[in-house]
């Protein structure tokens, strides 16, 4: 027996109006990363050699580490991040993003790493400049991801991957100013591929495991108005690239 379309629409309307409640945080998944798998990442050219200095560059979590307990001077990274363009030591742009959004490395989602990597490549390889901060703020905003809890209207903060970086939309139709970025939605199992990565000279924030349950206002900040005109020649160049 099929439900009447009007009844379905009414139910949907009711569900959409329900306030979203937050439940307990989504737990960490045990890591599947082993020394061997990390070595494979290195062989793929995605990690640096393990022993560049007296301290190991990367370490597989111990078997009894059900959630991250990185040694002092190490943080938590994911295999996917490195497949999507993260490298160490981190660029100043990557460091600026952590500082601006007030996040630790594990807070980035895999797609956030991809959009940042693509943006850096567009700036350097095509616009011939270092990643441009005002252009970044003009095009992108931060959004907080909460995982479904299994109960309608209830979502859970996540320990890893809570920061999504999305193209700004609205009246100005900013996506038309940038290149098409259609991201994959298939990241199955990414959050069980974490490991410890040396935080060279503390260039990125130390791991504290803090949980972000509300989106800070500044994640949506744009460019300072007085800086906006400076973007015009760059946006013009982007338009040319888009048409090329």
């Amino acid at each position, binding site marked *: 027996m099929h439900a009447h379309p009007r009844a379905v629409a009414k139910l949907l309307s009711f569900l959409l109006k329900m306030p979203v409640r937050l439940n307990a945080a989504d737990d960490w998944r045990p890591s599947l990363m082993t020394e061997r798998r990390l070595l494979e990442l290195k062989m793929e050219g995605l990690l640096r050699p393990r022993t560049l200095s007296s301290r190991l560059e990367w370490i597989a979590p111990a078997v009894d580490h059900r959630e991250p307990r990185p040694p002092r001077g190490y943080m938590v990274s994911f295999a996917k991040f490195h*497949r999507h363009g993260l490298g160490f030591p981190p660029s100043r742009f990557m460091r600026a993003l952590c500082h601006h959004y007030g996040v630790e490395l594990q807070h980035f989602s895999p797609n956030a790493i991809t959009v940042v990597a693509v943006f850096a490549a567009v700036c350097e390889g095509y616009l011939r400049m*270092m990643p441009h901060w005002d252009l970044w703020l003009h095009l992108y905003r931060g959004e907080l991801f909460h995982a479904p809890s299994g109960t309608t209207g209830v979502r859970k903060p996540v320990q890893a991957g809570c920061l999504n970086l999305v193209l700004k939309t609205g009246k100005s139709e900013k996506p038309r100013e940038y290149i098409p970025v259609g991201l994959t939605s298939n990241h199955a199992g990414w959050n069980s591929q974490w490991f410890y990565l040396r935080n060279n000279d503390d260039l990125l924030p130390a791991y504290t495991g803090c949980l972000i349950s509300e989106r800070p206002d500044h994640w949506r900040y744009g460019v300072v108005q007085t800086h906006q005109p400076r973007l015009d020649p760059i946006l013009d160049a982007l338009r040319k690239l888009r048409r090329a």
Partner: protein
Amino acid sequence: MTAALVLSAVHHRRILPLMSRPLRMDEMGPGVSSRDLEACRMSNEALTDEEVAARVRAAIAGDFKPEHVNGFPMRPDKGSIDQVSPFSTYGFDS
């Protein structure tokens, strides 16, 4: 120009965009020291087009094909477009 093409150019060149490098991507050409070039790349060994395409598909939606790898080369590679003046004074040093 699409994100998929940009990522394919990145993997084709064996670089990680979010790693600190001595050279900007558009500076990785003739006339620079081989030491700096090596410090930019994660490997001197080229990936196959199939492998590059697989890496792109892992990040970008759609069926990116090996024949499209490096279809929009970065500067200063052969075939890169030169419509854009450098904006060297903006942004971050790596």
